[in-house]
């Protein structure tokens, strides 16, 4: 491991499209202020749905304002989000791929839980409900799960390892970890990585309703009156870079991706296991060369479901021991909702903001303490405090855990 860990990975750009609108800074400012992106559901079939709220990208988001008209017809909403966020991140990084050489050493790895769900839903409706005889000829290139990664690669001429990662709600974290490993192991010097999701379709919403895990009014992680998750959407894309590469060109470093942990519960397809999550957190700390006492903040998976929040609390106690009581833990899903395969990416924006500005974003809507959730969740109001290092948790249906360890820029 020693010569591998010589290659350190830093983040030199971030971009996001979220329920707060376009821009990673917009998202971060909303989260640190404790604002909510959860609104009444905006959908043509909202009247036929039980679910009444969602954390949707605002209707003012206009892909045509940012993406050229020849590319637009090729894109599902997931790729519109991803391309938009990638442009912001790459622009912030100051990297120029125009010479055609740097692109060879650049990977593109984008997580998504379900891929082109909007396209899938629209074309299925045409076939099965409208009895249309034809579907749109670009349906396949829009809906394929790797479309977002491929579109970013094409837009910037990035010719390194490029693919999608799918692990439901942990997709973004798995993608970011994979990208970091690419750089560590010398397969790339730069990676464009993150997650994207746009899954607020009639079909998907009905499926979530049937599972009975959606909250009816808002998302209340760790609160005794929590009633489930609120679906969200959006994308977060980052520029990961070899430390030496970033330093050599005098780039502004936002944070260091110091380590990661990945485990599977291998128990139940939905019920989470505290052991699996704790093992991933421990692994991330060891990989980063950090002890529990070095960590000041954990951005929790914190979905607001009965099962997750108490199990995650137990997992944090298992991983951190006595230090668990000195940690700030918050779930920003209380504000940006659960964007499934993009969640970890939106949450990484929050963690980078916390490290940079020394402010921990709150857990909104936490108004009834639950004895089974007994950590410091920074309820309702953000907190100014130094954050030396942080973990960001993502746990997926299927029992898949992916945890990032972040440190201050070196």
């Amino acid at each position, binding site marked *: 491991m020693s010569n591998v860990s010589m290659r350190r990975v830093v983040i030199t750009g971030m971009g996001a499209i979220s329920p707060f609108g376009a821009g990673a800074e917009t998202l971060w400012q909303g989260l640190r202020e404790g604002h909510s992106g959860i609104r009444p559901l905006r959908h043509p079939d909202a009247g036929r749905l*039980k679910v009444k709220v969602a954390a949707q990208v605002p209707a003012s988001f206009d892909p045509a304002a940012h993406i050229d008209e020849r590319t637009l017809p090729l894109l599902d909403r997931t790729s519109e989000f991803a391309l938009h966020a990638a442009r912001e991140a790459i622009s912030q990084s100051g990297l120029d791929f125009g010479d055609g050489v740097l692109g060879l050493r650049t990977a593109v790895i984008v997580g998504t839980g379900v891929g082109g769900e909007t396209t899938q839903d629209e074309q299925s409706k045409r076939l099965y409900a409208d009895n249309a005889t034809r579907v749109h000829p670009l349906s396949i290139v829009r809906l394929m799960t790797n479309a977002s990664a491929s579109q970013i690669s094409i837009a910037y001429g990035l010719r390194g390892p490029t693919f999608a990662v799918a692990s439901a709600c942990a997709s973004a974290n798995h993608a970011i970890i994979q990208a970091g490993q690419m750089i560590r192991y010398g397969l790339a010097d730069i990676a464009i990585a993150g997650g994207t999701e746009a899954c607020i379709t009639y079909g998907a919403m009905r499926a979530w309703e049937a599972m*009975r895990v959606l909250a009816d009014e808002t998302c209340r992680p760790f609160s005794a*009156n929590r*009633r*489930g998750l609120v679906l969200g959407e959006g994308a977060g894309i980052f520029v990961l870079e070899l430390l030496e590469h970033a330093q050599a060109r005098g780039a502004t470093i936002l944070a260091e991706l110091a380590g990661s942990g990945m485990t599977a519960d291998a128990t139940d397809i*939905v019920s989470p296991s505290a052991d699996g999550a704790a093992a991933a957190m421990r692994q991330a700390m060891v990989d980063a060369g950090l002890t529990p006492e070095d960590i000041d903040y954990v951005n929790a998976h914190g979905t607001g479901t009965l099962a997750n929040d108490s199990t995650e609390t137990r997992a944090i106690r298992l991983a951190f021991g006595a230090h668990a009581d000195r940690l700030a833990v918050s779930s920003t899903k209380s504000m940006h909702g659960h964007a499934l395969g993009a969640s970890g990416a939106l949450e990484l924006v929050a963690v980078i903001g916390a490290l940079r500005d020394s402010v921990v974003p709150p857990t909104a809507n936490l108004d009834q303490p639950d004895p089974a959730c007994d950590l410091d969740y920074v309820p309702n109001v953000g907190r100014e405090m130094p954050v030396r290092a942080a973990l960001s948790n993502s746990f997926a249906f299927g029992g898949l855990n992916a945890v990032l360890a972040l440190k201050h820029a070196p």
Partner: protein
Amino acid sequence: MNDTTQQQVFDIIAKQAKIDVSTIKPESTLKDLGIESLEAIEVIFDIEEHFNINFPDQQGANFDSDTAQSLVDAVQKALDDKVAAGEGSD
């Protein structure tokens, strides 16, 4: 009618739990019968499909802790509500 509803609900539970229907007692919870998590959601779905009713969401609660009798009562209430709403003949 009540017995019939009860019998039908118990049959659905027995099928999911893969147990003899005679082992189900009104006070048995789904968890007692070995039905947890997603399987409990499936039982609810099967009951809704069978009777063509919609159970309200049990926000913040687990179906695992529902007793067989409480499910029968909930079905009966949903059927009564349907009749009251004039939809009883569909």
